[in-house]
C-alpha cells in the first residue's frame, strides 16, 4: 500500500451532511447541528435530529470552549502515519453548547490534564492538509 492510500483511509468521508462542518473548520469556525423544533444541539452532523427526528435542523457556530470529558495517552502507534507522533493525547471534549467530540489535546501537561480541565479550540491542519480542530488547556 502506498503512503498516500494509507493516509486516505484516515480521512473522513465527505458527504452532503458533513461538508459544511469541514468547510467551517477550514475558516477557523467550529459548528454543530441545532434542531429548530426541539433545540437539541448535536454532533456528528446528520440529516435528522437524533432527539426528535426532525429534518428542520440548521448549523450554528460554537464558542470553541469546553471541558475534557476524558482522555487517553497513546504510547504505541496504531497506524504508520502516527509512528513519530507518540505519545499523544486523544480526548472526548464536551463543548459548552452540549455536543461532545473526539479530538486531541495539544501542548498538554500530565500534571494538570484531567477530567473537567477547561480547554479551547485550536484550528490546525492534519494529513493531506485536512482541516481539523484540536484543543489546548485554557
Amino acid at each position, binding site marked *: 500500500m502506498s503512503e498516500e492510500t494509507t493516509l486516505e*483511509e*484516515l*480521512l*473522513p*468521508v465527505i458527504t452532503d451532511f*458533513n461538508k459544511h462542518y469541514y468547510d467551517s473548520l477550514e475558516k477557523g469556525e467550529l459548528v454543530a447541528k441545532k434542531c429548530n423544533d426541539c433545540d437539541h444541539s448535536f454532533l*456528528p452532523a446528520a440529516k435528522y435530529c437524533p432527539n426528535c427526528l426532525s429534518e428542520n435542523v440548521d448549523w450554528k457556530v460554537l464558542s470553541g470552549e469546553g471541558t475534557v*470529558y*476524558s*482522555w*487517553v*495517552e*497513546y*504510547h*504505541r*502507534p*496504531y*497506524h504508520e502515519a*502516527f509512528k513519530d*507522533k507518540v*505519545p*499523544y493525547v*486523544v480526548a*472526548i471534549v464536551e463543548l459548552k453548547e452540549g455536543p*461532545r*467530540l*473526539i*479530538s*486531541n489535546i495539544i501542548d498538554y501537561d500530565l500534571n494538570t490534564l*484531567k*477530567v*473537567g480541565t477547561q480547554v479551547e479550540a485550536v484550528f490546525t491542519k*492534519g*494529513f493531506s492538509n*485536512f482541516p*481539523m480542530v*484540536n484543543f489546548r488547556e485554557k
Partner: protein
Amino acid sequence: MENLSEKYCIIGVGQTKYGKHPGRTTIDMNVEAIKNAIEDCGIDKSSIDAVLCKYPTSTFSSFYSLQVAQAIGIVPKVSGVIDMGGASNINLIQYAITSMELGQCETAVISFADNPLTGSRNAYTKPWGDSGVHGWFGTPPAYGMIAQRHMDLYGTKSEQLGAIAVAAHKHAALNPNAQSRKEITIEDHQNSKFIARPLHLYDCCLVSDGGAAVIVTSVENAKKLGVSNPVTILGLGQSHPSWDIELRKEITVSGAKESGRMAFEMAGLRPQDMDFAQIYDCFSIVNLITLEDYGFCEKGEGGSFVENGRIELGGALPVNTSGGLLSETGMPGMQLIIEGVRQIRGECSDRQVPDAKLGIISNQGGIMSTHATMILGR
C-alpha cells in the same frame, strides 16, 4: 408473563485448546468445540435442531451459522448470528430459549471460534468513525478513556486495576486449559509498559485462537435426553448503552447496571447470594465497573472492593476462577459461561469454589457498547 427462571438449562460445554491454531479455519474450530460439547452431555447429535453462532470478530462472513450447521451435518429448524460483540453468546442463549418457548426447536448449540492470534488482528486496531485524523484507533485506548474517567472521578488507582490482573493470573495458574499460567505481582503489573495510558500491558486481555460451544435445552427435555448434570439458567438480562463512546451519557456506567437488574429480578436473587462471578474482563477496568454496576459495591468503590484478595479464590467473591480474558483466553465470553457451568457441576479441582451453587456471568462487547447477563444455579 410466565417467569422462565429454572425452565431451561445448559447440558453440555466444549472447547478447543486456547492459544495458537495456525492454519485452522474458524469453522473447523467450531466443529471441534461442538463435538466436545456433544460428548460432554452424551446426547445424540441428531437431537440438535438449532445452531446459533457469533461470527468470528476478526473476519466477518455471511450466513456464518449455516456454514457451521453444514459442517456438523445438521439442517437446523432455528439458526442465526447476532452482531453484539462479546454479548452475543448470552444473547444467542436467550434467542434459543425464546425459540423453544415458541415451540420451534428443542435443543440448541451456541458456538464461537476465531483466530486473531495466528490470523488477522485488524478488527482491533482500526480507526473509530471519522476520527482517524486525530489518531483515534484501537480497542485498548478506547477502554483507556473509560479507565481514565473512572480514575479522575473516583480516585481509582492503577494498582487497584493491578489487583484484578493478579487475581486472574493466579486463577489461570490453577487451570490446565489456560493459555497463560504465569502468576504476576502488582509490581509486575506496574512495571509492564503502557499500552494506552492509563492501561498497562497486564490490564489488557490475551489474544487467542480457539473455539467454544454450549448446548441448551429445557429442564424437561434434559431429563428425556438422560442428561445427568444440567446447570439451570435462573436469570437473563441485556442492555446496550451506545456505539460511539463520546455519545454515551456516562462512560463509567456499563450495560451491566440494567442487564444485571433484569437478571437478578428474573432469578429472584441478589448480588450477595452469588458464590462466584465470571465477569467479562477484556480490560481490567471492565471487571471493576461491572462489579459496581451489578451492585457488589457502590459506584466508585470498585477500586477498594477488588483489593486484598476479595475477588481471589478463598476471598468473599471469587471472580474469574479460570483466569478470564486476562489470563485463560482472550476469546470474547463463551469461556466464562463454560467456567460457570463447570463450577456449579463441581468439576474445577484446584480452582473449585467450595459448594458453588449460584453464579453470575457477564458478557459484553464493543467498547462497553453491549451487555448481557446470565445467572446459573443448581
